[in-house]
């Protein structure tokens, strides 16, 4: 039984700021732990000092001292969604280039670019994503002038000034058609560029940088050296089956590389190879059109087939404001569940699909067991939903990050409230807030 030391909410509010970490117990939850298992009813989640201390069946819960008991009356309780490979906080309006820091198209730097100083937790895209249950993300810098995009970071999406969790967690490089165009018009150029950069990274790491024989700036070479040593993961954007194989072969020459494949439209064609190499994948699962000659085999079954072959796959690479919004993660995961009913398609079980937007992306980001799961020791990133979180009709009713309840309001909710009715008989809309 739960021994809940209840304090009147008003008194509690007087004692704490709204953003203070809460010790709390959530009871009567339909619990999703995020580890791939299916939901379990009549469950309990305990958060203490911003961390999960228990998540499981009510029957095994024991007793806890707590300030707050939230009876969710059967609602779904999940870890926060982890958005892999996105650009939240780097722009307000993607098409307003003045404020868009997602790519540095005319910079003289490439690998050295670092998203950290550009991060803006007050971006509305962060707010609307948080309201959709997203609590953590990996933020990348998009390759533009160099095949290297720069150093990405792991962040939280809280309504506070500090979104940084881990700076310089990974490096981004694009190969395939995009990389070829950047590097000089051919895949031959992008692979030459990559080999040359890795050589320079090795030389600078061993103190043998020869400035006269260098194409990269000192800063870029240093960033590449962190990839060579395995300190930073290398996220490689690639789609065509042959390109995927070429990337996997890099491990033979550079064994310390921690590769992550991104996009991977034709991954299912080489799923066995990807699995054998132990390289994880981050992909938009809904790509099913031959957008280019490197995505001819694109299909919504891509994720299911790769997972079946043993590849660790995160749903991600959702970084826009149109048909690829980060907040579509739950919808897209739900689509993969729906594919199970389509003859000839390969989908995911519900538990697998949810893991693909929670624990799996967290593991790929290096935060396995910390984010994207509800289990002892994990961050208190908890979302309470008004229904099945993968269903179109559902939305979060409460979002906690590190045990702190988050604001779910945004520019959008304020507009909604202002225009709830159009009566201006007393004063114009401009006074309504």
């Amino acid at each position, binding site marked *: 039984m739960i021994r809940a030391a209840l304090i009147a909410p008003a008194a509690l509010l007087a004692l704490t700021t709204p953003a203070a970490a809460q010790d709390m117990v959530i009871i009567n939850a339909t619990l999703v732990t995020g580890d791939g298992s299916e939901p379990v009813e009549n469950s309990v989640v305990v958060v203490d000092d911003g961390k999960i201390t228990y998540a499981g069946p009510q029957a095994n819960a024991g007793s806890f001292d707590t300030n707050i008991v939230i009876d969710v009356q059967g609602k779904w309780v999940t870890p926060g969604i982890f958005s892999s490979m996105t650009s939240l906080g780097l722009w307000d309006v993607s098409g*307003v280039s003045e404020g868009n820091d997602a790519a540095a198209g005319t910079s003289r730097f490439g690998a050295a670019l670092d998203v950290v100083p550009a991060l803006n937790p007050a971006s509305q895209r962060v707010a609307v994503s948080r309201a959709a249950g997203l609590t953590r993300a990996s933020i990348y810098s998009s390759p533009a002038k160099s095949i290297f995009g720069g150093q990405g970071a792991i962040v939280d999406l809280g309504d506070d000034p500090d979104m940084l969790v881990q700076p310089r967690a990974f490096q981004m490089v694009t190969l395939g058609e995009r990389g070829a165009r950047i590097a000089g018009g051919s895949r031959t150029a992008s692979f030459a560029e990559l080999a040359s950069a890795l050589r320079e990274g090795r030389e600078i790491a061993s103190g043998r940088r020869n400035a006269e024989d260098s194409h990269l700036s000192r800063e870029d070479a240093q960033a590449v050296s962190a990839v060579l040593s395995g300190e930073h993961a290398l996220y490689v954007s690639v789609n065509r089956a042959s390109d995927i194989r070429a990337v996997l072969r890099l491990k033979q020459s550079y064994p310390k590389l921690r590769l992550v494949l991104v996009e991977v439209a034709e991954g299912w064609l080489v799923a066995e190879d990807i699995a054998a190499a132990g390289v994880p994948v981050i992909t938009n699962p809904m790509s099913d059109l*031959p957008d280019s000659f490197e995505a*001819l085999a694109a299909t919504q079954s891509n994720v299911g087939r790769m997972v079946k072959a043993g590849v660790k796959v995160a749903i991600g690479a959702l970084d826009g404001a149109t*048909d690829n919004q980060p907040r579509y993660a739950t919808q897209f995961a739900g689509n993969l569940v729906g594919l199970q009913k389509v003859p000839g398609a390969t989908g995911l079980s519900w538990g697998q699909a949810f893991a693909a937007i929670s624990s799996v992306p967290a593991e790929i980001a290096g935060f396995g067991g910390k984010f994207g799961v509800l289990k002892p020791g994990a961050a208190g990133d908890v979302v309470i939903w008004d229904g099945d979180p993968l*269903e179109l009709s559902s939305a979060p009713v409460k979002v906690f990050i590190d045990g702190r309840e988050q604001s779910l309001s945004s520019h959008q909710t304020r507009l*909604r409230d202002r225009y709830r009715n159009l009566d201006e008989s007393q004063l114009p809309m401009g006074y309504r807030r």
Partner: protein
Amino acid sequence: MALKIARTLALAGGVLALAACTADGDTTGVKSASATAAPQVTDTPYPSTYSPYPGVPTALVGATVYDGAGGVIPGGTVLFADGKVEAVGLNLPTTGYQVIDGTGKFVTPGIIDVHSHLGDYPTPSVPAHSDGNEATDPTTPEVWAEHSVWPQDPGFSRALANGGVTALQILPGSANLMGGRSATLKNVPSRTVQGMKFPGAPYGMKMACGENPKRVYGGKGRMPSTRMGNFAVNRQTWLDAHAYLAEENPDRDLAKETLAGVLKGEILVHNHCYRADEMALVMDMAKEMGYRVTAFHHAVEAYKIGDLLRENDVCSAIWADWSGFKMESYDGIPENAALLQKAGACVIIHSDNANGIQRLNQEAAKAQAAGKRMGIDIADAEVIRWLTLNAAKAMGVDAMTGSLETGKMADLVLWNGDPLSVYSRPEKVWIDGALMFDSSDPKHRPVSDFELGQPGEGDVK
């Protein structure tokens, strides 16, 4: 298209001098045509060659039937034969029909997308395929989208199989104030665009407000470079069209013929317009110039003027929840559709997107849910209307399709579950009573020429 504009290659300058010929504005007959060189003038050039494919009399029994007009029949029966809906009701006799058990499943009219660029921005999305914006002049009412549509665009089959789309309007892009005529198509595989053209559908004309035209032409150092410039060019163009209409025997002028068609109410205006204040101005421009706006497309701020839109009887074709991709989309909110519905205005969920067209049902469901969370309850059957009858109405084909009513085209989808659930997909799709997609039969999954012999050919996609 929201973003994909101005990708056309710069054309060599110069306009082909047309051989002299004259025709009256309504193109009902040739007047003073020269004996040898005059082009044929017909009511319907490039006429539809589509005719329904064979079907068998079919009874869908036991499914939840949404009729597209706001009605629902749990456990209903839908009978269709000879390409037409014969009856929709409860416990109808099915003797003589192939009976398909729909227990636990759902039937809707075929999904209709009022805003697509399939065929004119086909995949693969290479520059050689960029045929949606004649971005060489701010007003190009003379271009016809059907002359750009590539029927082998693999996107058509995705829209059919994953989205249950049976009819769609292909619009020119939004680089121009007046982008040209739309093409309304049946979503059937075809060797030619004529084989897809929806028989009897009126033309639409694409117009665009706001950022795109002023950016494209301002960037070229020419008018319009501002919103006021947009209006000035539009108004003068309408005045010129009126002058053309007033001429007794004008020379043929393709641009003016389209504009005259609008002024006579034969061609429907589909106006890309994001901001509420601009939509209000456009509705006044339409009054000033004597035409009607059928629908505002991408109307992300429509919720701010639901009353005006209702009073002017203009539909809003919208995404469920796109916002923040360009300045004029910044105030988009997921409650847009629900607020419009509450105001009594016409709502259409559109795609403008080769991915979105595969899940218009899901977009509608999200818009419905956003409304519910703010206390606006909209019945499922009403929501289905947003992507069926309302779209048909805006395309001028609602007398023929868009709802399951006796005598209408048997365009329908059997869903394997609730179409407003993320877990549901089309199981079978009929167009004019012919089975055009069957999820359990690979032989009823069309494959475009482009995909033959390539990786993934015939896959479930």
